[in-house]
């Protein structure tokens, strides 16, 4: 029996004293939750709003059978945890159902304002010849491969029609800086339009930094533009992945990062890793390179199965198991740096951890339900075509226009975002209603990705047992939960990743 504190404050505690529940009838009612076997001795239960509880194997069966008895001293803590975390209720309708509903709504609040990220593929031209490159062309034909001004204007007009008061305008390529003049035009035009439409705009340029000039850096500084670059690891990996004729791409990007940091500050530039078959053999070296260059975050992304990447089978087709092995080794290295006092977080894990450990949604397109395409992102291609996501335009380079939503300057906002194509896609954009996902305990941490399903399996719904997306995310999520459960020091590090406090 637990002794209840009889302080004068106890009457105003959010949760009632334990005796309240013990005095209640023994019967309890299940609330919606799902479970998954974590390891031979542990399972995890996850409720409708993403709260989780790691419990001994076989406990779910006992919960469902109504065997958790608060009179039994060994069950008291579990019973309290189940009540407090909305897994069971002592009344058929939980007293705090309004709280549950509000938290559910909060988890889906990324839908409130609709599309935020507007990607402008400002040019398809590039001066690199990366073997895994998904779309770029090495050419000087600006006329054919740069975005035309009237397409830029039409894209800005659509962005201004978004119900979202805070939009992001992201310039991609090819190499975006090859069309710097177009970027200047687009930013200046957007500033005027944003003022008219009362919108806050965040500007991002994705670039390999090889063409960076002082004039460009000054422009970024003047307009608060964020820079996103690619750094695949140390020189021997980066230069192999990102081949630039007659130059060291690694040297150029490292110099570019330093120059940007000096003018824009540490927060003004970020870098992404693209993993290839070569990268998979060097997880520790990649992490070490990020630390050497003073980064405090690293995003370990698997290579996407789109565009030219799928044609380079020898170099790029690697098994999910190999990626997971790479990921775990790299994560262990990152954790060790944190244990040694250097704060560095892994961004993919941080996205999932934020979904697990906070009430808030994460605006990451690949792990959302309803899916991030259209709801959160739209892509304006260099030729005026509009696609549902960045991956969708890469698919279009393989002559697959399944996710083409319209054309800039020809279709209206309503035709693009509320047309038949989006209506059809929306049926496969909710993982709560997809086979395999509907019963999955990790549903609220994962997402629906019909573009990936279509590309890899030729089916918008997808087949989870053979899906690399499913296998990868299931294992990463399982591994993160197990790591937190087994080592409280590591859990503390994970929590620091989502609070930003080391």
């Amino acid at each position, binding site marked *: 029996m637990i002794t209840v504190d009889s302080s004068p404050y106890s009457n105003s505690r959010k949760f009632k004293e334990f005796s309240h529940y013990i005095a209640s009838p023994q019967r309890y009612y299940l609330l*919606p*939750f*799902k479970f998954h076997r974590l390891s031979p001795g542990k399972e995890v239960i996850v409720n409708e709003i993403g709260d989780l509880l790691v419990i001994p194997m076989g406990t779910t069966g006992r919960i*469902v059978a109504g065997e958790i008895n608060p009179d039994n001293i060994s069950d008291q803590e579990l019973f309290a945890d189940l009540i407090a975390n909305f897994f069971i209720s002592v009344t058929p309708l939980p007293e705090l159902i309004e709280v549950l509903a509000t938290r559910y709504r909060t988890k889906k609040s990324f839908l409130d304002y609709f599309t935020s990220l507007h990607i402008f593929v400002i040019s398809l031209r590039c001066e690199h010849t990366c073997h895994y490159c998904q779309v770029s062309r090495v050419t000087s034909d600006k006329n054919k491969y740069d975005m035309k001004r009237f397409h830029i204007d039409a894209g800005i007009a659509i962005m201004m029609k978004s119900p979202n008061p805070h939009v992001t305008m992201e310039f991609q390529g090819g190499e975006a800086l090859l069309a710097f003049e177009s970027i200047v035009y687009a930013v200046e035009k957007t500033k005027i339009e944003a003022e008219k439409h009362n919108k806050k705009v965040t500007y991002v340029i994705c670039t390999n930094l090889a063409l960076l000039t002082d004039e460009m850096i000054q422009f970024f500084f003047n307009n608060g533009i964020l820079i996103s670059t690619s750094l695949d690891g140390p020189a021997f990996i980066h230069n192999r992945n990102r081949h630039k004729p007659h130059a060291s791409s690694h040297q150029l990007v490292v110099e570019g990062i330093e120059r940007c940091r000096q003018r824009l500050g540490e927060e003004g530039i970020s870098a992404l890793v693209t993993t290839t078959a070569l990268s998979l053999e060097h997880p520790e070296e990649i992490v070490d390179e990020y630390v050497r260059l003073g980064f405090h975050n690293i995003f370990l992304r698997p290579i996407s199965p789109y565009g030219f990447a799928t044609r380079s089978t020898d170099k790029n087709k690697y098994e999910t198991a190999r990626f997971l092995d790479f990921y775990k080794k790299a994560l262990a290295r990152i954790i060790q740096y944190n244990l040694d006092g250097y704060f560095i977080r892994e961004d993919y894990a941080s996205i999932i951890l934020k979904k697990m450990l906070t009430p808030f949604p994460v605006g990451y397109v690949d792990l959302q339900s309803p899916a991030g395409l259209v709801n959160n992102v739209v892509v304006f291609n260099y030729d005026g075509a509009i696609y549902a996501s960045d991956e969708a335009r890469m698919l279009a380079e393989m002559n697959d226009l399944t996710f083409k939503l319209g054309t800039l300057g020809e279709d209206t906002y309503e035709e693009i975002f509320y047309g038949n194509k989006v209506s059809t896609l929306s049926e496969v954009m909710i993982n709560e209603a997809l086979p395999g996902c509907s*019963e999955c305990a990790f549903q609220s941490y994962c997402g629906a990705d019909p573009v990936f399903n279509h590309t890899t399996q030729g089916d918008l719904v997808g087949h989870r*047992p053979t899906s690399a997306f499913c296998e990868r995310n299931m294992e990463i999520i399982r591994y993160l939960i197990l790591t937190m459960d087994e080592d409280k020091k590591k859990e503390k590090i994970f929590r620091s990743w989502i609070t930003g406090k080391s």
Partner: protein
Amino acid sequence: MEVLQNDKILKVAIDAEIYPEVVLLKCLYWYSNTFEVDVRKSSTSQYEISLKAIRHPDKVDWAIILLKLKQDLIDFKLRQHITDETKTIRELIIAKAFIYYDQQEGPVSEITDPVGFNPQSVKV
């Protein structure tokens, strides 16, 4: 649960009262990456399921597969039980979450604060 097995195929007779069709299908879905799965109703009270390896049938350890199948069937039955029992409350949570224009009423439960003071006693 009756089991019939040879080198290439595993056949299991399942009591339909214990494992209804929905449980069988949700469970066997996860076997469809490595097995050709067949489900048929052999009588009013029984299903017969058969698993045939799609690749390398000679390397399949059927004893392990059978053990996993039995475990998975129990797991999926549990999942179905939770889904069925909580269907109404789940729908209610989602409906309440997305009602936009309902008149905001005061919370049904007492307003209290976890740190101990009563916010209703605070004069603004």
